[in-house]
């Protein structure tokens, strides 16, 4: 399997997400201020920045949750102005800071719902009989195969996040926006999540919003730094770490050594 690499790994044929001059305003406050970003397939991009930098708002704007101006195109299709579920159907999936799986439904039911947005009414009215191949695959990729029949509500915290990622996989998303997927995870769970992201990131466009710098250093192939709604640096982990502007931003909140 190919690994995610800086600049993407799929050449000219790749899927991409292009963000141009994206702005989000709340009552005169500009949360996202003219962001330009190009995300390529096979590039495991980390989006970092101090609290309030607009990271989650940026993800919200891409997925249609908050109104924004500018342009977000996925392989040439404009996403801004479309409804949330329409954007999801175009292959843009996301997770949330707090895992939001369907707690009363089993792991399998969760995945089956995620796989089913394109089903016809007739298929919807029938019972779920067999397990779709892509669901089997997602169960294997996320390592949740043994838990398929238990309610998602009693999964461990890390497993819930993996289930969410699994749901994005069966949803057939090729742009994955993950909002702090390792928050609250143990060291081992982080490691496993990182490996999972590497596995899935090879064939998709993955953006990880993250606070954990060790995690970022271990797994990112490229990094975008956001501060006060603006992109202040972009590049490899090393380039970003050596950027004086980034160092300054992080010095404002914590010591550089601690933060980066």
């Amino acid at each position, binding site marked *: 399997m190919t690994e995610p690499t800086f600049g993407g790994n799929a050449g000219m044929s790749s899927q991409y997400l292009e963000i141009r001059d994206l702005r989000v305003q709340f009552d005169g406050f500009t949360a996202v201020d003219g962001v330009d970003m190009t995300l390529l397939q096979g590039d495991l991009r980390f989006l970092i920045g101090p609290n309030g930098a607009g990271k989650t708002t940026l993800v919200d704007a891409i*997925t249609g949750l908050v109104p924004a101006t500018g342009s977000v195109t996925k392989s040439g299709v404009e996403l801004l102005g479309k*409804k*949330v*579920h329409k954007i*999801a*159907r175009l292959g843009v*999936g*996301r997770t*949330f800071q707090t895992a*939001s*799986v*369907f*707690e*009363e*439904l*089993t792991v399998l*039911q*969760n995945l*089956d*719902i*995620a796989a*089913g*947005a*394109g*089903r016809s009414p007739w*298929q*919807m*009215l*029938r*019972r*779920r009989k067999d397990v779709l191949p892509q669901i089997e695959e997602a169960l294997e990729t996320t390592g949740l195969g043994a838990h398929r029949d*238990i*309610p998602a509500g009693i999964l461990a915290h890390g497993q819930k996040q993996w289930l969410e990622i699994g*749901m994005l996989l069966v*949803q057939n998303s090729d742009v994955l926006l993950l909002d702090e997927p390792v928050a609250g995870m143990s060291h081992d769970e982080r490691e496993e999540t990182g490996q999972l992201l590497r596995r899935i990131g090879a064939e998709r466009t993955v953006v990880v919003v993250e606070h954990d710098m060790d995690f970022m250093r271990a797994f990112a192939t490229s990094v975008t730094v956001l501060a006060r709604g603006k992109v202040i640096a972009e590049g490899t982990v090393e380039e970003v770490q050596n950027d004086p502007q980034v160092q300054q931003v992080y010095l404002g909140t914590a010591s550089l050594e601690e933060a980066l």
Partner: protein
Amino acid sequence: MSVLTRPGPVRTWAGFAIAALVLFGLAPAVLSDFRLNLLAKFLCFAIVAAGIGLAWGRGGMLTLGQGVFFGLGAYMMAMHLKIADAEVRGDTVPDFMQIAGIRELPAYWVPFTSPLVTLLGILLVPALLALLLGLGVFKRRVKGAYFAILSQALAAAFAILLVGQQSTGGSNGLNRFRTFFGYDLSDPINKRMLFFIVAAILLLVVAATRQLMHSRYGELLVAVRDQEERVRFLGYDPATVKVVAYTVAAFFAGIAGAMFVPIVGIISPADIGIVPSIAFLIGVAIGGRTTLLGPVLGAIGVAWAQTSLSESFPSAWTYAQGLLFIVVVGFFPAGLAGIATLRRRKRTGSDAPAEEPDIEPTAENTEMEPAR
């Protein structure tokens, strides 16, 4: 017996068979005509309850205004029966209109001269109204208490509208029906036939609800109830999912209302306003709103308790009903069905998900017994 207590097709069919035996064999054999007619009325409430169980229990929509759809079905049926009675007598207008001095059938009554139009109206009008309302409400993301208040206000408005209409009998409503599609309603055999019809409808409604609950749609509905926003990010429009359950519930309520009319012999604004709309809910809450049979048996049980208790303690029932509702909603949100599952789980020591709606043949039996 183990095959009957294990979930699966055998138990399902056995459950339906036992329910059919009780409704078509046992009940008519042991109940007096009067009690059987009462039970038929309770079965009408049970049909409404099955729909509420789907919309509220599974879909999370607190449908406080089912009286509107129940009333629409009921009034359409009642108008047809009144016209048919007048035709039998050779009059152009129903009796109550003659008294009020109305000489000609109002234009909106005319379509209900035809039995076919009436039946189609009963099947389509409540469902279509729910579809339109649902689209308007759920697409605008109105939910929770706002939806509940809205639907209740609608029930109130509908009842008030009817009180002011002389051409539907005002607050007296429509009553004294002589025939039902040509059958004499004073004949006990025909009353018994009505019971069989409503019993068959109830079984069909339960079967349809069961299919909906167990289908992929049913799983999606629960997902929408618990995490509406998350469902959106999976590419579904939750409003569509909710509209379907709301429409189905209205469809059931309309049919129940239509059957209520020949069985009870009267429909008035008092049967469809706020209080009856809430009463529909109480049985559902007590029985267990998330299960298949909880709402059905709860509605029958509460209606029976109301009838028998209000015979002996007319004023106490209202308080008992309110208390029961508060206790169940406050302390046993899963209703009696929830308590039953809890006990079963303790006994078997398994923590298998109780999500599977249960067919409880024995419960069907015990709920029927008091009505003897």
